[in-house]
């Protein structure tokens, strides 16, 4: 006669792990002052309820729509201009940081000499620094340095994204077959020529698709950066929220969603087209 075995062999380790997690998270609860009941307190709920109720209908006055259109254009322009500046920095930096164009590597079976490695580190370090500080921190700093407005956003995107693009480009250059470039270098061609004819044809599609993807990210980032005063849709959302203008917030958020969807589709189209 078979009977159900009620013993669970994994029960004890599971219990111990749960206890450990709780012990670790308990001080965390204190630190983060987590309190879900705040949301349910009646006065807060009434306040939020009134604010959310004003979300419908979304604001659609002619004047506001004009403002919305301008903010959307500004967001797009910030992302595009920021990407252009980022490319200006990222392309030379990636060429400097990549091992793919090392002369010593061409004659040493793909391993660059110690000195070559050492000299590449400063460039890599700068790229790491540029992309490790979050873009919104750069935006905040630039707002103080060059004033409120889209310029701060453009510069912040340019700096962060040059770090990201530079690193990824350098890695893409190293990821393809190195033999064509090495052959060219050994035959006496210059480094730029070796790059253009030995590496670029193999990596062009990947470079383009990554750049377009980053442009899409830049649009999202430029919206977020508006919250510290760097122009575009984000700044408008921040302003409308501070004025408790629910309808305006609703139309701004809807516009943001449409913009992200549009950028997503456009980037897919471009990648399909250029690949």
């Amino acid at each position, binding site marked *: 006669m078979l009977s159900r075995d009620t013993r669970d062999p994994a029960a004890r380790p599971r219990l111990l792990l749960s206890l450990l997690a709780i012990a670790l*998270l308990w*001080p*965390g*609860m204190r*630190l*983060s*002052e*987590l*309190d*879900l009941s*705040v*949301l349910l307190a009646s006065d*807060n709920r009434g*306040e*939020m309820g009134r*604010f959310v109720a004003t979300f419908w209908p979304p604001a659609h006055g002619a004047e506001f729509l004009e403002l919305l259109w301008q903010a959307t*254009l*500004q967001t*797009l*322009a*910030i992302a*595009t*201009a920021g990407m*252009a500046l980022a490319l200006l920095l990222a392309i030379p930096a990636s060429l400097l940081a990549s091992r793919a164009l090392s002369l010593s590597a061409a004659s040493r079976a793909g391993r660059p000499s110690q000195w070559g490695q050492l000299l590449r580190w400063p460039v890599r370090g700068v790229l790491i*620094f540029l992309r*490790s*500080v*979050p873009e*919104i*921190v750069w935006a*905040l*700093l630039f707002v*103080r*340095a*060059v004033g409120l407005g*889209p*310029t701060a956003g*453009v510069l912040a995107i340019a700096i962060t994204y040059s770090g990201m693009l530079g690193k990824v480009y350098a890695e893409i250059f190293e990821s393809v077959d190195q033999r064509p470039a090495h052959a060219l270098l050994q035959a006496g061609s210059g480094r730029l020529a070796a790059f253009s004819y030995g590496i670029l044809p193999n990596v062009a599609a990947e470079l383009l698709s990554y750049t377009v993807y980053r442009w899409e990210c830049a649009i*999202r980032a430029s*919206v*977020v950066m508006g*919250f*510290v005063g760097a122009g575009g849709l*984000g700044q408008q*959302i*921040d302003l409308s*929220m501070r004025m408790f203008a629910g309808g305006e917030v609703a139309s701004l*958020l809807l516009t943001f*969603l449409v913009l*992200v969807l549009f950028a997503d589709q456009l980037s897919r189209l*471009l990648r399909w*087209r*250029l690949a």
Partner: protein
Amino acid sequence: MKRLVNLLLVLCIGTAVLTSFRYLGIDLGELGASGNLKQMAAYVQRFLSPDLSTGHLQAIARGALETLAMSALGTLLATVFGLLLALPAAGRFGWPLQGLSRLILNALRAIPELVWAVLMVLAAGLGPNAGTLALALHTTGVLGRLFAEALENTPPEPADAIRLQGGNAVFAFCYGTLPNLFPQLLAYILYRWENNIRMASVLGFVGAGGLGQMLYLNLSLFQEAKASTVILAMLVLVFAVDTLSSWSRQRWEKA
């Protein structure tokens, strides 16, 4: 023909870039003018001597712990709610609930963390609580969708076997579906936690606690020396998370 289209595309991109600069009225020449550059250099110089006094370092340590706690609890809350929403979103309770829960998940996911943070600061007051809730809301959307996809892709046979043996639906889920799913869920959760640590350190800009709030405060009071220490702390945090995650990924992928 293809060449022509590509040429046109390149032209379009070129015009888009030029119009962007024109539209924003950015004059790079003016930005690079010597007076402006001198001013910027003076501004940068004030960041070069970070404030390393014990009191400030203690405050930063507290801020970093707060950031970590916010991200951990936000991710944990998101895991719970994400799993609750993922079950209907994977079509376990019929299509009306599936449509509804997918709509909720998409809405949660589409609104960026920072917007949620502003809303939560309005709803729950200044402080890390608002940041935790904001992270939880956005991450619920992300994790819920990922969980739902994972649920749809797990093989149903183990759960079916338990059902056929007479186990109820809860047992079938806990012992038939969850063990297969668990490694994937854990990978998603850790990945989002990593993202959330980075996000938690900047949510403070809108008053939602953590290192960001310190940085915002210090910059507003023109205490650049203190601000630069906070930025350094953020860098250290990001590096630590990056190193830890790449190390653990290499380790577990080999195993």
